[in-house]
Every structure is written in structure tokens, then in C-alpha cells.
């Protein structure tokens, strides 16, 4: 299969009064149709900014270098006008916070229909009918009535369903879900994840799932990429990564995730704080927090290297072990 969305050596930096800050460094990723890629990392690791760049939604003080290709079209160099022909139509995004991501003074129906009206030129009635069908499809009860409601009249879970419906309106090839469940109650989280699974199976779209929650990834993703301080540190299939994480950061992440099936005495944490992007540690950015650090890690930065099974990681220790 060929990849639908391909990110090639993406670097995103922000100019701030205190100098430039690189939020994403040299990231390469790709997703295929029908595949779900999980992108995992702490807050500030650059995982959201990577795909904000793809959507052309970076803040004004950001500059992005590299390539992001949707088929043959380079999204990074595309004009706003050209970008608007694919945004919402071929590539759509579901945002983190459904409470604030819908326009408060517009009725739900109008917000949904305008995507179709803009991209497919349908009339208002068709737009409304298909919006209702889409609300049915994401299992919103009493869809007809909801069309005439304002966002604040819906619960958080319903609003996130509306967001998903909005992303699905034009049946896009790529769906980016940025922390789609973070702002929701635990029970609602599970429902939204079920819905996303359904969408993935029905639509055959490529889904990018950005999250800090490995549990979410385990349930939904086929492949995982782990980001730390703006770089990808490990990549591979969900099965491989969960069974045999090789980067110490991924190992730490997995150890931190509380599991119901295993008795643990205490919660495990990764020591230390996420690094300050303005002042990254020398060598491997993770070395101050790494339990296995040795001299080379402080002096040199490990590059992302492919292993035989399709897994890739940026760590000297892992490379050393593999070589032995």
C-alpha cells in the first residue's frame, strides 16, 4: 500500500522574544489508507504541532521547513487558497477541546452543512439532510432536533461527536484526531473511542491519533510513533512496541501506565521534568532522565535507525544491545 500522507524531515520553529524555539525537529512520518497511526508523547513534545503544520494551522510566529505531501500536493508550500480546497474535504481534524471548538453563536446544523456547501456546492436543504444523516451516523440521538441547537446546549460528549461528524462530512482520506478524548469523562471517552474505531473500519481513511495516553493507542492504532522533545525516538507496530519497547523513554511510558491486570506496589514515574525546548540538554535530549545513560549519550545525539523488524529507534543503548 502507498501512503496517503507523508511527512518528510519536518522542522517547526517558533520565534519568541527570547529567541527561536524548535518545537518539531526533523520528523518524518507516513500514514497509509485504512491505517491508524498513534503519535504519543508528553505535553510540549511537538506531536500536535507536527499535524498543525499539515493543516496549515500553525501560529503566525511559526515557520515550518521540510515537506508534507498529501498524494502529490505539498501542503507546506501550498497557498492558503489551495490549502482550502483540501482542508475539510480530503484532510480533516478533530480537536482536543470540544467545549470551545464549535462556534458559539451558530447552530450545529449550519456549522455542519457549511463544510458541504463550501466543498461540494450543495444547496441548503441537501446540506441539512446530509448533516442530519451524519449526526445519525455518529449516534447522536434526536439528530433532527440537534441541528437547531447551539453548541452550549449539548454535553461535552455530544459536542465531540459533532466534531467527529464535522470531520467526516466530506469523507476525507486523512483524519487527524488530536487528543479527542482528553477533555471528556472516562465513560464518554470509551464511547468516543468506539466511534473512532467504527469510523476507521467503515471509511477506510487514514487516521492519525495524537495522544499522551498509551491505553488509547493500544485500543485503536496499528502503528505507533513516540515523540520526545520534538523528535521521534521510537517507531513501530503497536504489537512490537508494547511487547518489546526498546527506547528507555517508551519503556518508562509503558511502565507508568497503570494496568488493572498486574498488581503493582506503587505508581511508577519517569524521574525529572520534560526538557525546556529553549535549552535542550546536550546529546540525547532524554539523557538527564534516562536510567541507562552513559557518556556517549551526553556528547552525541543518536539518530533514528531502522531495525530489521520495521521498528526504528533513536538510542545508543538499544543500538548497542541489538549489535551484541
Amino acid at each position, binding site marked *: 500500500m502507498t501512503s496517503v500522507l507523508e511527512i518528510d524531515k519536518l522542522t517547526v520553529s517558533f520565534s519568541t522574544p527570547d529567541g527561536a524555539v524548535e518545537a518539531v525537529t526533523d520528523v518524518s512520518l507516513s500514514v497509509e489508507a485504512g491505517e491508524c497511526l498513534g503519535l504519543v508523547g508528553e505535553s510540549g513534545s511537538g506531536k500536535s504541532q507536527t499535524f498543525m503544520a499539515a493543516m496549515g494551522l500553525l501560529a503566525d510566529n511559526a515557520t515550518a521547513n521540510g515537506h508534507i505531501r498529501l498524494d502529490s500536493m505539498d501542503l507546506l508550500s501550498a497557498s492558503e487558497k489551495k490549502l482550502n480546497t483540501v482542508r475539510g474535504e480530503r484532510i480533516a481534524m478533530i*480537536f482536543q477541546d470540544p467545549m470551545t471548538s464549535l462556534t458559539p453563536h451558530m447552530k450545529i446544523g449550519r456549522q455542519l452543512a457549511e463544510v458541504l456547501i463550501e466543498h461540494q456546492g450543495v444547496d441548503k436543504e441537501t446540506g441539512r439532510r446530509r448533516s442530519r444523516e451524519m449526526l445519525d451516523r455518529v449516534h447522536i440521538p434526536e439528530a433532527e432536533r440537534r441541528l437547531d441547537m447551539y453548541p452550549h446546549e449539548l454535553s461535552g460528549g455530544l459536542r465531540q461527536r459533532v466534531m467527529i461528524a*464535522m470531520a467526516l462530512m466530506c469523507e476525507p482520506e486523512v483524519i487527524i484526531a488530536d487528543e479527542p478524548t482528553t477533555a471528556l469523562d472516562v465513560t464518554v471517552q470509551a464511547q468516543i473511542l468506539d466511534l473512532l474505531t467504527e469510523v476507521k473500519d467503515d471509511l477506510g481513511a487514514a487516521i492519525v491519533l495524537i495522544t499522551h495516553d498509551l491505553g488509547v493507542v493500544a485500543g485503536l492504532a496499528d502503528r505507533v510513533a513516540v515523540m520526545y522533545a520534538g523528535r521521534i525516538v521510537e517507531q513501530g507496530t503497536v504489537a512490537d512496541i508494547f511487547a518489546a519497547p526498546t527506547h528507555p523513554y517508551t519503556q518508562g511510558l509503558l511502565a507508568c501506565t497503570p494496568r488493572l491486570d498486574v498488581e503493582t506496589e506503587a505508581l511508577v514515574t519517569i524521574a525529572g521534568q520534560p526538557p525546556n525546548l529553549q535549552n535542550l540538554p546536550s546529546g540525547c535530549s532524554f539523557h538527564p532522565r534516562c536510567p541507562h545513560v552513559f557518556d556517549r549519550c551526553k556528547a552525541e545525539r543518536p539518530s533514528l535507525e531502522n531495525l530489521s523488524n520495521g521498528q526504528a529507534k533513536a538510542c545508543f543503548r538499544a543500538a548497542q544491545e541489538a549489535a551484541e
Partner: protein
Amino acid sequence: MWAYFTRRLFIAIPTLWVVITVAFFLMRLAPGGPFDQEAPLPPEIMANLKAAYGLDQPLWWQYVNYLGNLLQGDFGPSFKYKDFSVTELIGQGFPVSIQNGAAALFIAVLIGIPLGAMAALRQNSGADHAAMTVAMTGIVIPNFVVGPLLALIFGIWLRDTMFALPVAGWNNGALPNRILPVICLALPFIAYIARITRASLIETLRTNYVRTARAKGLPFRMVVLRHAFKSAMIPVVTYLGPATVFLLTGSMVIETIFGLPGIGRYFVQGALNRDYTLVMGVTILAASLVIFLNLLVDMAYAWLDPKVRYE
């Protein structure tokens, strides 16, 4: 919603009553009376004058009388303009002031909002900085400075050119007589509205829902007009409440400078002449106006922000 406004109206009445009562008793606390002049009047004339204006009655009776008359729309006789009642003076002055105020507000909205929006959409550009510096100038240079300066320029320096404009008098509302006062009154409004529009639109453009609208692939023009603009207008509408107060005080200066027969000038004259009934009448009118306009502003909210559905 109507229940809400009825309730608001019921709150407005006590507020107005407090204003009237405080103003009334403050006025009566004053040492010296309205008829004190450089040469003291003979006592019997003073007594007659006081009797004629009901000032010989007990204070509480004067108060009750005043309230009773107010309910019938009678603000009492003017102490200084002997042949006029305050109601008549207000009847003459109010239309002049309200016409100028409305014209100034209309011009301010018409110029201020597009100016602020343009600055917001080109944030930190040269045009933005230029517009905001001009706006700042409009705000900090008070209209009692701008007024005389405009009068100096158009009334004196350009006296013999085609740009000459009358700098004094109302002339029954002839257009040339209105131009300078209205410009003078509108300038700070333009500036405030432009600044508020800019700040508010910049903030709205950073919201998550505007990001969602952009992610849908809508043209930027549509994102701004359909998704951002309405929310961005909320602070501007809020400002229109205080703007009324501003307009009223502005009219005191403008009408004094340009010699217009409006309520602002009557108020200042009344204050300088200790014409108590006139001062009170204008104060009460101003307070009612402010309360009424704040109510209108609240109604506009309901339309701009569906979350504010008054129960």
C-alpha cells in the same frame, strides 16, 4: 426573556429613585441659595421669591412635591431663566444634544469598526501601528483641546477659504454648524471603537472555534465574517453603554465651546449659576438615558451570544 427585561426595568426604577433623592438632598444641603447675589436682596423680596418657588415649605414637603411633579413630567421652574420651566428648557435642548450624539455615534461605528478590523487582520503591520497610534491620539487628546483647535483652524486660519466653517451657534441646525461639533464629539469614539474592535477581533481569531472553521477549509473572509465577527462585536456593544455617559459629558464641552443650545450647555450654565432645578432635571434625564441604553445593550447581547438567554 421578556420576564428578564421586566425585572430589569423594576431594578431601574429604584436606581433612578436613588439618583433623584441623592441629587435632591445634595442640592438642598448647599450653603447659600440660588438667589444669593453680590448685592443681597431685601429680606421681603427674598421671602417672596422663596415662596414663589416653594422654598419656604418644609424640606420633606418640597421633596414629595418634586417627586409628584416629576411623575407628571414637570421638572419645576428654572431658578435662573425666569420665564422658562426646566421642562421647556430640556425640551429645547434635548433634541439638539441627541441629534449631535446620535450622529457622532453613527460616524464612530461606521469608521471605528472597519478601522479596528483592518488593524486586527494586519496585526503588527505598519498600517496596524499607524491606525493604533492615530487611535491613541484620538483618545488622549481631550475634546476640549480638539474643539478649540478645530475652531482655530477652520474658523480663523481658514476663514477666507472654501474650508471655512462656522465655529459658534446652532443656526437652527444648519449642516455647516453641525460639522465641527459632531466631528469633535465623534473622534474619541472612533478611536475607542477601533481599539476595542481590534483587540477583540485579535482575541477571537485565536479561539479554538476559529481554528475549527479554518480547518474546514472555509475561505478566510468567510471565517472572519461568519465565525469570528459576531463574537468580536460583544465588547464593542458593551462599550456602547458607557459611551452614552461619555457622550453626555462630551456634550457639555462641545456645546460650551461651540455655543450650542443643548442640555450639556444648560447643565454647565446651571451649575455655574446654581440653578438647582435645571441641574437636577438634566441629571435625572441623563440617568434615565443611561439606564435605558444599558438595557438596550443587554438586549443586543442576547442576539450576539446565544449562551446569554435571559431567564
